[in-house]
């Protein structure tokens, strides 16, 4: 196991931010820490980064405590981003890599490559303040990986990125994974995690809800959910045998089915009453799994999603 968090706990003024959280991040995977805002993701990451000290519990990398060697071998992109406004791109890249223990000649070897990769090469000798916000985000992402760390930690990496840059960054993350790096990222947007991560851990109110490989987590929940699009009033569907729960969305209805429910029987009963335009048996989304496992109010989550503009 690469990175291991063992029953870490952090309290602020009597409020538990992270509650006996244990995680194991295997080498060479993309690992997502997922949960709504305020679940304790950033606190967990800050503890991994030695920025805040856990009240109890231990964090180890390859069995060793996370000291200076660890700091040098990790790239960290915090949620609150920013760089020195008055330094040039080149200066700041050299400086931040040097702080990670990489001498400047070595940084200069790969500097152009990375700036080209994120389309910032023409700004190399310009000051950071001349960049747009999106450009600064790309620059900061590059400074995170410039010293070739084995572990890359990205806190809410996609917040504030436009779709084009998001794809660009995703591409780089996948390349890094192919190069054997381990990427740990946090997000409150489940759809992003679903597209990107191999392994994941869901946390809610400081506690772990579920963790493991994405495929395992999903198969554990089975194909027990169906989406149905109908014309007319579908209120009766909730009381059909085999339907555990029904959620009505704008243009479709999502059904949570009991284990071993007869989907054919359900479909027949529905076609008897109304016209069916679509009926899909679907894998549960991470969102559904989270709602199911964390027993949180979906309305609360919906609000956050809208707030985040996703």
């Amino acid at each position, binding site marked *: 196991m690469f990175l291991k968090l063992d029953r870490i706990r952090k309290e602020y003024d009597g409020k538990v931010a992270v509650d006996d959280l244990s995680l194991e991040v295997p080498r060479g995977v993309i690992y997502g820490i997922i949960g709504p805002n305020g679940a304790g993701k950033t606190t967990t990451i800050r503890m991994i980064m030695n*920025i805040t000290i856990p009240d109890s519990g231990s964090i180890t990398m390859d069995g060793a405590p996370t000291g200076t060697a660890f700091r040098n071998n*990790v790239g960290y992109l915090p949620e609150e*981003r920013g760089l020195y406004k*008055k330094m040039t791109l080149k200066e700041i890249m050299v400086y931040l890599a040097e*702080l990670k223990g990489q001498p400047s000649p070595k940084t200069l070897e790969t500097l152009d490559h990375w700036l080209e990769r994120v389309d910032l090469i023409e700004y190399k000798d310009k000051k950071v303040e001349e960049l747009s916000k999106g450009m600064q985000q790309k620059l900061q992402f590059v400074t995170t990986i410039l010293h070739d760390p084995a572990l890359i930690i990205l806190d809410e990496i996609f917040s504030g990125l436009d779709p084009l840059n998001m794809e660009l960054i995703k591409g780089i993350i996948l390349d890094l994974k192919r190069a054997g790096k381990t990427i740990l990222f946090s997000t409150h947007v489940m759809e992003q995690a679903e597209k990107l991560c191999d392994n994941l851990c869901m946390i809610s109110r400081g506690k772990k809800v579920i963790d493991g490989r994405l495929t395992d987590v999903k198969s554990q929940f089975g194909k027990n959910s169906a989406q149905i699009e109908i014309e007319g009033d579908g209120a009766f569907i909730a009381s059909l045998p085999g339907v555990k729960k029904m959620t009505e969305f704008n243009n479709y209805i999502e059904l949570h089915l009991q284990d071993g429910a007869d989907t054919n029987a359900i479909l027949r009963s529905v076609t008897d009453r109304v016209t069916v335009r679509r009926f899909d048996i679907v894998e549960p989304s991470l969102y559904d799994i989270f709602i199911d496992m964390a027993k949180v109010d979906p309305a609360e989550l919906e609000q956050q999603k809208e707030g985040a503009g996703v």
Partner: protein
Amino acid sequence: MSKFWVVFKREYAQVVKKKSFIIGVFLMPVMMGAFIVLPSFFVNATTSKTEKLVVIDQSGLNIGNEFRESLNRYKLDDTTRYCYEVKQVFELPADDSLRFTVLEDSLRRLIANEELKYMLVIKRGAHLCDTCVYLVTNSDKFRTMSRFENRLSDILSSVRLEISDVNLGVDSVLNLTRRLSLPTRDAKGESLPFLVKYMGALIFVMLMFGMILGYGQMVMRSVIEEKNSRVMEVLISSVTPFQLMLGKILGLGAATFTQAGIWVVLGAGIYTMKGAFNIDASIDRLIFNPAIVIFYVLFLITGYLLYSTVFALIGSIVNSEKESQHFIFPIVMSMMLPVMIAMYIIQEPMSTVSLVLSMIPFFTPTMMSMRLVFVAPTLESYSILSGILMQASIGFVIVVLTTLGMIWLTAKIFRIGILMYGKRPTFPEIVKWVKY
């Protein structure tokens, strides 16, 4: 400690590379020089125009005409024209108040319209009563005033002498009653004029004040910038807060001493040409006195470390420079205090009050340097047991210990404060961080 050096290097380069640093290094001495030289230059500058005056003399003692003659000694730069031209001496009988009033009124109007510079009124009994002579003018030149005063004093003295029983010439009386300006020498028979000491002490303190406050505030601004730009979190994931803090303080400290070093070189250059600048030769005894110089450098270093640590502390708990303002005021005051009470320290450098004040660590660097200028022993009479050297050494130890304590305290608050954005912490919260 290599990461400390990375921070150190950046902080140093960020300051020294700036144009403002180069400008500051050369502009500051020029400005200080200007402050010292310009006022005396302007006071001594001669007027280039003959000034016109009128005298109304009601004394009946011919004072007006004598005054007119006595002014002939003042010539303009070209030495052919006079500084003052007495247009007319109106001699009026003492009891003709009507004519006097009319005349004075019309002359006052001329002065108000700036057609005339001065009107000297000498009333009856001028030699007996000082308020019987007065000058009406639209000018404030105090050199002219002192010239008029001197001439009139001499004339009135001779008038008084004539009516008295003393049978002596005016010149001999003035000679007999001349005042002494007491020259001072130290035990070795050498003289160090008071003005040299005073200016020396003031310049030493002001330089220390400028460098400590200037660079100390830079430490604070640099911390605030990193907090505001949120780059802090990245830094803290790479270096420890202590490495960051120390790198900043010492990196900017190195910039301070680069500046001081350039000034020493510049100063040495000026010193070799001191003849051309009219610098008092006794300055040697100030700047070549090892007691003064060594302690000054020690106090500059420790003073900088102490104050910049305090500034780092402030930077870590505030969110903007605006918020830092009310913390800065007491700091500036604690550094200004020695300048404000300089006159007392100079008069009583070895008094208990001076001693106690100079042992308060935040005052020590400036206060002790100032005292040293006045009472430091000369090289020949050196003894570590000499009062002031002993006191300065103890003061130095106190400052060092306070600085170490301050660094310890700041390190505790700094590592938490730098990641607190938004709300400024309350005092109880800060106390909690220290205990944590």
